[in-house]
């Protein structure tokens, strides 16, 4: 993403399946207390508007279609951020 894009990052946030810890942290960081809006961050909740797809929790067979659909409905240029160890490497669910 170039400079002009980075001045207005709009986020859509999706929680796969997890202990909801990351989920809570992400939402907390987007509250007015931390004022992410300083950097132009907006929590849109709508893939048609968002630039950044923030995934927390592990992605599994159950929610893979949902993640795929949301991703497909976002417009280019877009990027996906996996947040937390569950989303990055499936974490403890791999051990089961």
């Amino acid at each position, binding site marked *: 993403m170039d400079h002009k894009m980075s001045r207005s990052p709009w986020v859509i946030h999706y929680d796969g399946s997890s202990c909801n810890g990351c989920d809570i942290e992400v939402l907390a960081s987007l509250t007015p207390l931390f004022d992410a809006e300083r950097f132009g961050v907006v929590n849109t909740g709508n893939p048609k*508007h968002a630039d950044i797809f923030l995934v927390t929790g592990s992605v599994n067979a159950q929610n893979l279609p949902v993640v795929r659909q949301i991703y497909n409905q976002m417009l*280019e240029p877009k990027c996906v951020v996996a947040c937390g160890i569950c989303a990055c490497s499936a974490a403890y669910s791999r051990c089961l």
Partner: protein
Amino acid sequence: MTLLYFLTLFPLVPALGMLLARGDRARDALGLVGSGIIMAVTVVVAVMFLARARRASRLPGTSHVLSIISSAIDVILCAVILYNAYKYRNALTTVLGIVQLVGSVAFAAMTLPAAEVVTATPLYLDYMSVIMVLAVGIVGSLICIYALGYMKDFQAHDEHEAALRGQTAPDRRPQFLALMFLFLSAMFVIVTSDNLEWLFCGWEITTVCSFLMIGYTRTPEAIKNAFTQIILNMLGGIAFLAGLMYLHLNELPMTITGMVDLSGAGTAQSALLVMPVLLLSLAALTKAAQMPFHTWLLGAMVAPTPTSALLHSSTMVKAGVFLMVKLSPLYAIYPVTGFMVTSVGAIAFLLAALMAISQSNAKRVLAYSTISNLGLISACLGVGAPEAVWAAIFLILFHTVAKSLLFLCVGTAEHHIGSRNIEDMDGMFSRMPHLTRLMMLGIMGMFVAPFGMLVSKWGALVAFAQTGNVLMIMVLAFGSAATFYFWGKWLAKLSGVDPTAQNVEVNVHKTEWMALNTIAALLILCCVAFPVISSGLVPPYLAMVFGRVPYVIGKDSMYLMVVIVAFIAVVLLTSFRVSNKPHVNVYLSGVGTDKYRHFRGSMGHEVKAEKRNWYSEDALGEKRIGPAGSVVCCSIILFALLCCAWIGPERLAMSAPSVLRGKYFEGSGVVGIFIGTVAFALIAPLVGGLIDGIDRKLSARMQGRVGPRLLQPFYDVAKLLRKAPASVNTMDDTYMACALIFTVVGGGIFVSGSNTLLCAFMVTLAAIFVVLASASTQSPFAQVGADRELLQVMSYEPAVLLMSVGLYLATDSFDSIAVTGQSAPIIVYSAPIFLALLAVLTIKLRKSPFDLSYSHHAHQEIVQGVATEMSGGTLAKMTLMHWCETVLFLMWVGMFFVWDNPVSWVVALVVMAATYFVEVLIDNTFARSTWRSCFKLGWGVALVFGLLNLMPILVDVFI
């Protein structure tokens, strides 16, 4: 002109032919040729009249023979009524039929021996008659052509149903088609007869014809409704007859022109006219389906669609208002009659519009809208001033064309989608592409800004303001808002694009297309020819009758509207918008399936997402409002009748107190508006974006945050414009572009100092296109947003119209430039209206407590309601539009503080800044409220403050 006789008699030829012809082919040929000849003769008559440009052409008459014929026809009609009343054992109809029969015979016995009294002018033509002849001849004939194809489907459907029950359906189509042509003939008699006796003859023919046509299917419901129609219209007929007898017994003239001529005399003899005028108006009100007689029009819906189209649009109801147009000069002279017509019309206009909101049956919505519009026409006519009659004539003309188009479209749609319920019209835009576009054109023709109907309403508003008719201004403001809502939600429903739909309009009959396309072309033609009609046809008539030509709408505004109509027609009807953006599905929370509007539910099933319209049956249901309206209207009519009976006619014949206001500004002309628009387009987005930035910064500070950079809104839009293109359908981006354009034009109109009403209409037009953009996506989230957007517009509309009226009160002009010529700011005169505007500003600026259209229950503001499916460039356009709107609305506020002093501009800027600060404060203080409180606030403040501000004028007239 022998042609006139030919015109009135010729429709009888195809009528007879229909009865004799056997087989569809023969009937089709007969119908097409017959209608073609009627249309051609109509045009020839009109052209010859206009070419000679005579004030009125009259024929010396063989009227004694005609009077005998008309009396004979009256008696025959009574016999038909009595026969049917006997056949179906209807007591009330029998009684009324006998009364009318006795009346007709007695009247004939009175008048026929004294032939010299009756030998006035036979058939004649003046400008008003030409307009009506054109409307009846062209639109009526097209409806006949339409009926040829439609009745085939209707009969096939009937036979199918009958076969299921093991019966055969009788084919009554010949009689039906014959009645339609007979109807046209009767209408020609009505609009070209100066002699009231003949007019009455045509009047009764239409009553009986419509009785037979409503009862066409012979089902119990149809027969019941047909009798409702005949009973109510016979009441009117008897009133008409009583009026004629009164005229004869008091040796008053039996012609309309005679009555108008006599009324100017001011003698004891002329004072006697008050009673017949009242009775004739009563007859006209029944024919025009005003409250309390409106039920017959609703019942007429059971008939095949061509009947409804014929009754509602071009003929039956128009006969009523036509008579009132002719009588309108008398209403100013006999105020009690004018009072009755105006009040009944105003009540019908407002209440029928409200009741239309609660209806989901398309034909019933159309019926209520007809009652409502005829109410407005009557209200205008009752005022009896040329300004108001000007508006009424245009309302008649445009209503005829737009409403017939809508009826015919609904009829065809009903045969192909199997329902006339608006809720079943989801995705119509794809299922019947061409038909739906015509239907949308018709709906826009009924209520959207540059089309004729709204321009006529604008004229009505100006007329009421000029004549100081305060209560009517209020009625018009609220009635228009209700009208906006019920049309808007239907339009939104139609616009839905369903990519998976099958095209079901391939089987529509050629004759149906022929009629539909021609009427649609006629609608556009009428709108485009508006300046010509308003200078060539209507003013000569008004000059002839009233002796002066009113000035209602400036030429430049008209030209501007013509351009916009043409633009909308191109957008809607051509396919230039086809975009090659990649298609994406609508957002359904990530669980949508490939099927249209389906998602995977939590139990693993496929579920369809549906959205139903908002009807508010509990508050606006017909059972609640209808009886109340009827009671009030009955009391008004009784009051007027008692006045006539008890108070001496001399004391009733005083001219209505009225003060004519108005300095006619022309605004800054088309060139000025163009320059203003360009300037606004360049500056408003910059200023608006900056205001948005300040807004965000200010909100953050109020919440104890730092907030985004000042230029963040520009960064956002810049990013949106650089996103990859994608859209859910090919229409939404086009609609959004239109919305942006219209907002900018509205701003341009305002900054160039032109008409503020036109400016307000442009903003409303933009709102309609936003609604279309979001409803066309067929996303449930967006549709809820669209519905709420409509609600918001309905809530603030009255206050915005009143803003223009407030400007008018202070400056006697609707042009915004007028404030600069004032010695004091207009806030001095219109403080309450300013307060009302401030109150609805929160709704208009989409600030927190009333920011409904951007939110949704499930997702709160996160998916952004109307904007759910908008992405990239489309969303950027919407943002730009909001910026422009913010600037424009703040300028409206500032307008109240400008006067002919340079310092005032600074004052205005300070007030604008303070207002915006307050809005931000409100936005951050109150939680989102419900649509009910939004609606109550919007209408409440407009009503209370509006009346408060306008009351002095009402009193002023009498001082």
